[in-house]
């Protein structure tokens, strides 16, 4: 496969040397099953997460179809609970997290000037664990005792009422955790050891920074989750009483342990999104990222705060007043670094020379809609009012705003942004824009009414509701069906770009793009940088603010 034809950019001293050593494995199994190549593994992660996105999404369609009108029309309540539980587990652990690892695999070596990830064989293993983990998790739906139905939070004692299939759920979570930890070790080792000479920490692209911090979060909290679910396992099958009050345990202790994992986990899903958006906005504003150093510190502050706010998920369990005050104040503080980020993005756009290609549209959609989710998060931080908001659709609306038009929009923005680089072809800008507008409108029809439902008193995780909630549930469901269907456009655009597109991408791809990845050809050579690139301030985005 020739890639010379697409060379059209400056600073290109690496590729010619590579082409001779481009040893792609020839057989299908050799190429994909035994691969140790960061790009192939990145592709595997991305394809896997897209598949999971549709599996988890089809569960959401079942949920929204049952909630389309009052009364039970389609599924029994127990199956409904399996759907809400599985939807969350699949989307969190199967779609968003592996997608970010896919981006990390593809982009980090190219962004720091490395030939590959630091630990290529472990890289293979950390991906190939996932299909087995999720096959095991999904198989519980077909077992006698059904899939997990106690919510993705797995609160005991309810989760312990699950049948034999619960063991499979726990082992699947263990495997996902092992995969995440190995992926994180790889990211940290690559970033800390394999940067090209001259690529100092404070010259790294923000996506690399956010992933470095995310990787530390993952290593810190995935073992905590593993411990929590292991104690559930022994409580369920071996008669221990970690969370059984009758045996001297405490069901609330599980919630503390779970959310000590769970709160950093939500930042694990959003920090790389901050990174991607911080790459895209400067490119299409043709202007350097505003406040690069502040962005790095803000990301680190958010990561630190994420460890001391966990009990804001538990204001209703009966904590002492001083505990509630501490967690309320700490949670409110998160608004400060998050605000700094939003202000910096807006300032980056300010007085730029903007164009609005699909990646930029998704990035702007991200900033606006993520901010709406952030603001409702501030409302939820207030402990006394949270005793009204808690466990209602207001919370569902809040976290879907930060996760769907938040994390998922950033994933789509990143996909459109780097797809020409990955494939060597341009995607269809027209269909990309259609995908954006249909998604952006329908996602609001889907989630905005859920704020109203929650405030009016509709609890979350219920399969049926009183007739006073009928109107907004129907609107929300209609939005959900449109949003779900419009994601088929996304698949269409990707498939077209990979297999059909005739428009070759240049190395630079975007007029305003800066960073080492754009100095490579599109598609890049199989091994990114066999000799370290020379870092000069015209090719990288952050040559240091002082200059």
């Amino acid at each position, binding site marked *: 496969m020739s890639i010379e034809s697409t060379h059209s950019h400056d600073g290109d001293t690496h590729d010619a040397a590579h082409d001779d050593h481009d040893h792609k494995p020839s057989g299908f199994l050799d190429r994909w099953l035994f691969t140790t190549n960061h790009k192939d593994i990145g592709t595997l992660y991305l394809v896997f997460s897209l598949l999971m996105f549709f599996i988890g999404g089809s569960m959401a369609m079942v949920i929204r179809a049952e909630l389309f009108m009052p009364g039970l029309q389609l599924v029994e*309540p127990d199956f409904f609970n399996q759907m809400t539980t599985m939807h969350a587990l699949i989307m969190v652990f199967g779609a968003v997290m592996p997608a970010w690892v896919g981006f990390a695999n593809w982009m980090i070596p190219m962004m720091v000037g490395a030939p590959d990830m630091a630990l290529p064989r472990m890289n293979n293993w950390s991906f190939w664990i996932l299909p087995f983990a999720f096959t095991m998790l999904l198989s519980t739906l077909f077992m006698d005792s059904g899939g997990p139905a106690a919510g993705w939070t797995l609160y005991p004692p309810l989760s312990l009422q699950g049948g034999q299939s619960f063991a499979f759920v726990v082992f699947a979570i263990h495997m996902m955790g092992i995969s995440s930890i190995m992926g994180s070790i790889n990211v940290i080792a690559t970033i800390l050891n394999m940067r090209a000479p001259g690529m100092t920490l404070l010259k790294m692209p923000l996506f690399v920074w956010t992933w470095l911090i995310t990787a530390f979060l993952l290593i810190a909290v995935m073992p905590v989750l593993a411990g929590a679910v292991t104690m559930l396992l022994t409580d369920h099958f071996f008669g221990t009483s970690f969370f059984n009050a009758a045996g001297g345990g*405490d069901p609330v202790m599980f919630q503390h342990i779970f959310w000590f994992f769970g709160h950093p986990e939500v930042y694990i899903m959003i920090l790389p999104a901050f990174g991607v958006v911080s790459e895209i906005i400067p490119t299409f504003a043709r202007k350097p990222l505003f406040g690069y150093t502040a962005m790095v510190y803000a990301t680190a502050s958010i990561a630190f705060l994420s460890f001391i706010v966990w009990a804001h998920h538990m204001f209703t369990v009966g904590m002492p007043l001083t505990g509630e005050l501490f967690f309320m104040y700490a949670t409110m503080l998160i608004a400060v670094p998050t605000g700094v980020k939003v202000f910096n993005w807006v300032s980056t756009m300010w007085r730029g020379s903007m164009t609005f290609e699909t990646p930029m549209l998704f990035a702007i959609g991200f900033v606006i809609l993520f901010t709406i989710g952030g603001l409702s998060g501030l409302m939820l931080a207030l402990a006394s009012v949270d005793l009204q908001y808690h466990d209602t659709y207001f919370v569902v609306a809040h976290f879907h705003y930060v996760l769907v038009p938040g994390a998922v929009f950033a994933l789509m923005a990143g996909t459109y942004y780097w797809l020409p680089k990955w494939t060597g072809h341009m995607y269809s800008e027209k269909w990309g824009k259609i995908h954006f507008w249909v998604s952006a409108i329908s996602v609001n029809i889907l989630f905005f009414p859920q704020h109203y439902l929650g405030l009016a008193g509709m609890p979350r995780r219920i399969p049926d509701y009183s007739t006073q909630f009928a109107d907004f549930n129907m609107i929300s469901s209609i939005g959900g069906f449109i949003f779900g269907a419009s994601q088929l456009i996304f698949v269409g655009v990707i498939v077209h770009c990979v297999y059909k597109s005739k428009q070759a991408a240049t190395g630079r791809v975007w007029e305003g793009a800066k960073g080492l990845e754009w100095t490579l050809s599109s598609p890049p050579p199989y091994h990114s940088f066999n000799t370290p690139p020379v870092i000069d301030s015209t090719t990288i985005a952050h040559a240091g603010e002082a200059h």
Partner: protein
Amino acid sequence: MKKQNTFIVTAAVTAAVIAAFWLLLAAPGYTGNEINMTRGVTAVSMTNYQLHMVVLWICVAIGVIVFSAMFVSIALHRKSKGHEAAQFTHSTTAEIIWTIIPVVILVAIAVPATSALVQMEVAPETEMTIKITGFQWRWKYQYMEDEIEFISSLQASSNAARRLASGTDPETVENYLLDVDKPLVLPANTKIKFLITADDVIHSWWVPALGWKRDAVPGFINEAWTEIMEPGIYRGQCAELCGKDHGFMPIVLNVLPRAEYEAWVSQQRQEMAHEQSQVERLWTRDELMELGENVYAAQCATCHQADGQGLAPAFPALAGSSVTTGPVQDNIDVVLHGREGTAMQAWSKMLTDSDIAATLTYTRNAFGNETGDVVQPQTIARIKNG
């Protein structure tokens, strides 16, 4: 140029349609579904409503400022208009300003938020105590001073209509899913303490009009308090996922003026005395079968199904089961004490001795079980009291 115009038109039309859509629903004349938090009927709920509105408007203001700056930039600073990109990269002054201003706003919010929390959590001297116990999937209420206790379950009409493909339009059921057989009756203008716990899994007791919810955790007792200012009917629901019928365990408060409440209490005490005398007499088989059929439909059929066939795998069939056709003693034991680790509860805590005896008689003779056994209420009372 034409492309950029298309963009502006698409964006403007989208924004206008969405804005009009929401404004229409939020307009004062709108008579459809409720869209905001209730003000409620307690001092705490009103404080929470006010705090909610203040913070909501602060958030709206922040949103308007940030998004306006963005939209101005999007409108003006575009390449198609020939705008040249400035190359400024940072401003420490700006970073300090937009760190300090949010901190000031947060402190301003934290002051009322703290006093609201103190108001809620620091209970005054209370005049009476209600113990609330969550079960899968009903609530038990105990009046600690008056020794009244009862179970409150979903109203039968809702319970029938909510079955999968029941054929009943929920719109035709009054207070669909928000009505119970026996509401919690409380006096108005009285400081009431609640002791909240659960018997099986975690539930959460929530009546929005009171302004809070509190988790019911098995093995632990949470405290809360209220003083309801206006008599009336107030409805709520369980707010913590507690299994398959989590959506079907509503809470209804019937708040009465003090005098009417006192009258209700004495009537309840008479009924309980009458119930006691019923336990001591011998019942006929027909009486037991009739009561048993009713209790079974209200309490047992949710899991074991009206025809006794159960719902595999979690809820076993009673028709032809080794328990309902085996020794009576073992059957009584299961019903009284439940089955650990399953949804089968210890019914001795929830049903009267007559109800339990009647249900046992019914299940041992219905669904083709034909054991011919008759279980008397006094037998249950004797076993329960050792």
